[in-house]
């Protein structure tokens, strides 16, 4: 087998050196009646060409690629420049472990330092860690971060935060004697109901987790939210599920938000059926010693030359064990590397331009669909690259099916998560959609009856 470099002659000689006759003796400490169990139900080995055949067939069983998709909701299709694919595939980047020996890991470490820097520029905050698992777990870590920092036991979350993220936060805090309450959103604007937020804030509240652009695609008034929270000595944690929006919208830092967490899949990662993606966390300087995850810092070597190391490891599980700021160990380093490559490749001009195209494409759709009496854009102001579309007089199941018959995935039915919106779809537009794509969608929707 090509993955095993030992020859039978090697094995024989090594067994002799060790002083055993048969490899089975290596397992002498194991219960002898349980080892070398039958492998009869395990399929036979496939050669490399057979592997390609088998998995090509599985790939062909996915009809998805034949469809024009407007699905978003926390996973977005953006164009990925080929340099990102080529460079990130280098074995030197793909196959090392966490950089525990910095002298032979400067490539990963410097790239990570550059990633951290670009994330602070995008979020307008002081410090960034080197990655978390994904947007949902980053939101949960954000909640735990401000609870630790504030030494309080109550947290508020926005009702228009991604429903999966809320589920994950609930799972994370479920057994920790912490209290979670949901803040309502305005049925008119789709944004957080600021009166409800003020009403639910109390002295035991550590902070408020809100998403902007929120699950409905609406951009929140971050500054107002932060001001309300700071008035009660609580922290503002902004979740960003569509990282592309960072280059178009006023940054969390500019809005005086304390912590930004979220999903950066949009920065150079394929949809990948949901993963691996890239959780991120950036915060004001005061949070750094409470942050979870790896952080790369600059230092000097024995001769005074610049170099990079993992730093502040006294926060982490391998030193602090049960008192660590998080249990995280392996994170999403390679995804962060791809994000760094993507950000550097698009650069200042490209990011500003692409993030703007996302909005302009969405705005075009919103204007056009609004002209049709059968539809309404539920929250027509201050969206980024997703809008909620209400369909009148046609059942949503029929809409989905009829559009699917035309090879279009029109969007996510909101009622999956919000039963109060049985007639609405969440529709996403990125730079990957051309005018012809959007016109095809508009035409197909117009033909619904």
């Amino acid at each position, binding site marked *: 087998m090509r993955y095993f*470099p030992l020859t039978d002659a090697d094995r024989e000689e090594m067994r002799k050196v060790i002083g055993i006759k048969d490899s089975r003796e290596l397992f002498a400490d194991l219960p002898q009646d349980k080892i*070398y169990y039958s492998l009869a139900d395990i399929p036979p080995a496939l050669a490399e060409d057979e592997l390609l055949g088998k998995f090509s*067939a*599985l790939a062909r069983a996915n009809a998805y690629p034949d469809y024009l998709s407007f699905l978003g909701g926390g996973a977005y299709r953006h164009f990925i420049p080929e340099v990102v694919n080529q460079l990130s595939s280098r074995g030197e980047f793909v196959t090392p472990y966490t950089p525990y020996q910095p*002298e032979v890991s400067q490539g990963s470490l410097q790239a990570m330092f550059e990633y951290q820097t670009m994330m602070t520029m995008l979020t307008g905050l002081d410090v960034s860690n080197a990655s978390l698992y994904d947007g949902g777990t980053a939101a949960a870590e954000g909640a735990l971060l401000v609870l630790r920092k504030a030494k309080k036991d109550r947290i508020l979350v926005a009702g228009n935060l991604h429903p999966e993220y809320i589920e994950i936060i609930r799972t994370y805090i479920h057994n920790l004697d912490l209290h979670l309450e949901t803040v309502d959103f305005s049925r008119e604007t789709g944004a957080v109901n600021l009166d409800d937020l003020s009403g639910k804030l109390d002295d035991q509240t550590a902070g408020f987790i809100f998403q902007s652009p929120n699950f409905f695609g609406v951009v929140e008034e971050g500054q107002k939210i932060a001001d309300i929270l700071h008035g009660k000595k609580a922290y503002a944690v902004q979740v960003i599920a569509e990282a592309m929006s960072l280059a178009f919208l006023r940054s969390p830092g500019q809005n005086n938000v304390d912590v930004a967490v979220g999903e950066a899949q949009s920065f150079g990662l394929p949809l990948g059926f949901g*993963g691996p993606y890239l959780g991120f966390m950036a915060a004001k300087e005061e949070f750094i010693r409470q942050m979870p995850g790896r952080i790369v810092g600059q*230092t000097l070597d024995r001769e005074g030359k610049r170099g990079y190391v993992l730093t502040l490891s006294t926060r982490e599980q391998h*030193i602090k064990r*049960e008192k660590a700021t998080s249990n995280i160990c392996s994170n999403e380093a390679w995804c962060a590397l791809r994000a760094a490559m993507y950000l550097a490749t698009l650069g200042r001009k490209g990011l500003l331009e692409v993030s703007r195209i996302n909005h302009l494409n969405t705005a075009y759709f919103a204007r056009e669909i609004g002209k049709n009496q059968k539809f309404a854009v539920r929250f027509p102001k201050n969206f980024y690259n997703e809008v909620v579309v209400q369909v009148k007089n046609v059942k949503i199941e029929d809409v989905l099916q009829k559009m*699917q018959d035309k090879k279009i995935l029109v969007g996510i039915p909101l009622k999956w998560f919000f039963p109060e919106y049985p007639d609405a779809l969440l529709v996403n537009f990125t730079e990957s959609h051309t005018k012809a794509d959007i016109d095809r969608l508009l035409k197909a929707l117009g033909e619904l009856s």
Partner: protein
Amino acid sequence: MNRLPELIFDISREGKVGYAISGTEFSDDLSAIDPDRRRDGLEDFPQLSEVEIVRHYTNLSQLNHSVDSGFYPLGSCTMKYNPKINEKIAGFEALSAHPYSPHELVQGNLEIIKTLEEWLVKITGMAGFTLTPAAGAHGEFTGMQVIRKHFDVIGQNRKIVLIPDSAHGTNPASAHFAGFETKEIPSNPDGILSLETVKEHLTPEVAALMMTNPNTLGVFEKNIIQIASVLHQNGSLLYMDGANMNAFMGIVKPGDLGVDVLHLNLHKTFSTPHGGGGPGSGPVGVAAHLVDYLPVPTVSRDKDRYYAQYFNKEGIGRVKNFYGNFLVMVRALVYLCALGKENLRKVAEDAVLNANYIRKGLEDVLDLPYKSRSLHEVVFSDKNLDVKTLDIAKRLLDFGIHPFTIYFPLIVHGAMMIEPTETESKETLDHFIATMKQVLKEAEANPGTLENAPYSTPVLRLDEVLAARKLQVRWQKGE
């Protein structure tokens, strides 16, 4: 010698462009959004041409040691070869669907998830699996939540989780974040848990024991069946950290040893690459009585049709977005299909043979604190040496060898934890043994040589204390 390139911010020049994405076909109508919700610009963000980006990252890559470039016997991390065909297949565009696609359009992907689950069930003897956790520690957290749920359901408020002193730091951290108090219990002079020690610490308060098996000394916890039995008599559960499953592949099923909850690391035993610190994947397997508590989503098969379920009132809820790290699962399944029944067992046999060969080669020159039989890794100590483990490790870098795991497990003085894996040749092992002996000779003759090592790396020994004291975690303009 390779040198660090300048930072990307320092090579950036106004007006350079590294991309070409077609522009918008629409007018620049921004009336849908209030101007005060938009940002002005992206000051200091890099601007480079494509060739400069390619050179920057190519130069950076050449500063890394990796499995592709050389021996990487990092103990407990199972740095085996990551097959190239895995990468090719994980890159298939047709697998890269949106996670909210209708199930009938992603039957291939759902089949991949279900098939991998079935493989893991066969290999481990557990009754069911979730593949959603993103890494080993995330799997531990998920597994401990399942245990918490079990006691909630039967109405018992058990608070304590027992953890051996040889455990990885993620074990106590994961148990803590699942709401448990952890209690450390000592391993015996053979480096394993004795039945008596476990009995001593068993109280009605004990929810579970978290045991790594083979443990971090590379030793089989041979009392596991009796320990499982006394735990179960006490109403407690046995959690097995399967980070070291490489020693068990095709040899023994944890499910046959009395394990209730198990996590695996696809990025260790199952050959998916570590990526410099992730992405990983940490599937959790459970015994039959716990299957209902696994997190959502779950994937099922109904005749020839695959579907996912997103809600389960009985379960612990959700631990990760979507289906987990799907493209990591793809790689693991490709690997298992490549191995097949003919080669599965050889993974463990060769991995353990290689570790024992290194043990034999070095046990005359290094202190071996625990004499128990080694499985996939061997742990030496610097106790009888004039130099420290750290210095030996740093000197190895000059010979193109990535050092072993150092100073872990904590119960060994100056631990050197060596895990060669099955994907190394005898020639590589011989070279490693010879190099270690040479370094130890050097240490005897002139210890100063080691204290200043390495000499040939892109940077020399780095000041980690300075990094923490004078924190600089981002580039600043003009610095």
